[in-house]
């Protein structure tokens, strides 16, 4: 089995391959060029992998003269392989979470799901714990409970083909019934890519907020006394969850790149415009900031690390910083902190002291 570090390197190498392929086809448009620049700036590892992939592509051009690489030889090998039972090597879909019919979670299914997720170029969890599947309740609804530990993330394709991404320190319980699909987010943060079903609503209850999907991809994050909902694509309706609602619920509709905060006892605030890609950077094991105070950046970084950042000089808490960092590459983040004027960084066994 690959180590976590090697899995991360492998996924970055594949992303490097994707960028190399995209770039090779001609000039990138401005948006892609900016995205690539951003990707390269994420960490030195990204740069190393991109340069290495580039030189491999270059070196392969030298192999053309070799008869092993004649067009006929290459195509003959590809055809020969097709005749054998090559299908089994290709995990085509992420194994679906049972909605009551298919049943058991086998280690092989988890491994296949892991392969499929990696091949999609997304970085998700290792050390996945077995989901807990409750026996069917009297109403025939099966509940599925998923949770992640500190620093862990996981992705599941659910029985209806919706995809759930769970961030660090998070827990959800999913109950699919005949008339609705209900997800309870009890801690942390989750992202939902919902398969729209006109006759079966998709509802998320998260702390003080309730989110009703209207065909979309959205992110829900539980904070201390409020819930933040960010829409990546499509539309959702957000209102107070029944537990915190006193009067008739007030629902607010949100569209892409809008975010709303629902505070317990106060209901939904006014939606604000955001860059949803930033909110969902965690899906790529990245954290992204644009002119945000160091204190908030450190809190976000600490969600993923076993060696937290501690700011011991109060004046530094409000220092505004910008950047995109991989949560798997503390060294690059520390190097960045060290490059800030007036900031000193000390790394000990248990923490990263910033002063």
């Amino acid at each position, binding site marked *: 089995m690959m180590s976590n570090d090697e899995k991360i390197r492998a996924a970055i*190498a594949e992303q490097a391959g994707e960028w190399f392929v995209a770039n090779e086809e001609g000039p990138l448009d*401005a948006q892609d060029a900016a995205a690539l620049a951003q990707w390269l700036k994420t960490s030195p590892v990204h740069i190393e992998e991109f*340069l*290495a992939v580039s030189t491999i592509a270059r070196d392969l051009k030298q192999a053309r003269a070799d008869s092993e690489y004649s067009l006929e030889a290459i195509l003959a090998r590809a055809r020969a392989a097709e005749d054998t039972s*090559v299908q089994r090597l290709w995990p085509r879909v992420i194994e679906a979470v049972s909605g009551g019919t298919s049943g058991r979670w086998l280690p092989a299914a988890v491994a296949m799901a892991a392969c499929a997720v990696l091949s999609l170029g997304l970085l998700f969890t290792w050390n996945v714990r077995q989901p807990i599947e409750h026996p069917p309740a009297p109403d025939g609804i099966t509940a599925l409970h998923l949770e992640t530990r500190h620093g862990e993330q996981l992705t599941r394709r659910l029985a209806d083909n919706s995809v759930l991404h769970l961030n660090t320190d998070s827990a959800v319980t999913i109950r699919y019934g005949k008339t609705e699909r209900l997800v309870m987010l009890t801690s942390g943060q989750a992202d939902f890519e919902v398969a729209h079903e006109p006759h079966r609503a998709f509802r998320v209850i998260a702390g003080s907020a309730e989110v009703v999907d209207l065909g979309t991809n959205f992110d829900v994050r539980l904070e201390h006394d409020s819930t933040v909902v960010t829409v990546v694509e499509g539309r959702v309706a957000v209102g107070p969850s029944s537990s915190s609602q006193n009067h008739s619920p007030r629902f607010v509709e949100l569209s892409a790149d809008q975010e709303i905060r629902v505070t317990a006892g106060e209901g939904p605030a006014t939606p604000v415009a955001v860059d949803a890609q930033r909110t969902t950077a965690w899906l790529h094991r990245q954290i992204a900031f644009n002119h945000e105070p160091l204190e908030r950046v450190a809190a976000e970084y600490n969600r993923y690390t076993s060696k937290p950042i501690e700011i011991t000089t109060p004046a530094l808490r409000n220092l505004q910083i910008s950047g995109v960092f991989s949560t798997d590459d503390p060294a690059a983040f520390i190097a960045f902190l060290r490059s800030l004027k007036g900031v000193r960084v000390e790394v000990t066994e248990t923490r990263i002291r910033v002063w």
Partner: protein
Amino acid sequence: MAIAERNPSLVGRLFAEHRAALQAFFLRRIRTKADAADLAQEVYVRMLRISDQAAIRNPVHYLYTVANNLVKEHAVLDRRQASGVDIDEAPAHAELETLPAFDGDLDTTQRVTRLGVVLKQLRPKCRAAVELRFTHELSYRAIATHLGVSPQMAKKYVAQGLGHCRRRMAALG
């Protein structure tokens, strides 16, 4: 360098303020040790200069140019300050030709031999896609036709194949 000055964002400003110290730091390092990770680290520090994304029309060209400059600086043990990056001269593929490989001191023939070994570990269509793309420079459309897949899938195979070859080559040391 003009890039930071044209785009006075925070990262650019910070970099401008610390440029001398950073350059001294990486010149010192690169003289004593210049493996791939070190090179990448130094390139990364220079890439932090890209403060405004719009400043870089061609990030790959910029990357190759920066990496080549660093290699040249290392080769001649240039004591002068690192020169600026002019990305308007040669095209990216010309810069790529002079980039060192990332597999130690192997020459091209040895690298190609090793690539032959790691290519065999790819899934068959993935391997064929990579070979057709780089040894024959076929278009993705042509590769897709040969392999009976969509052009999107052909691209996916090549991207995965490149990533896989890279990690296998790194593992061979």
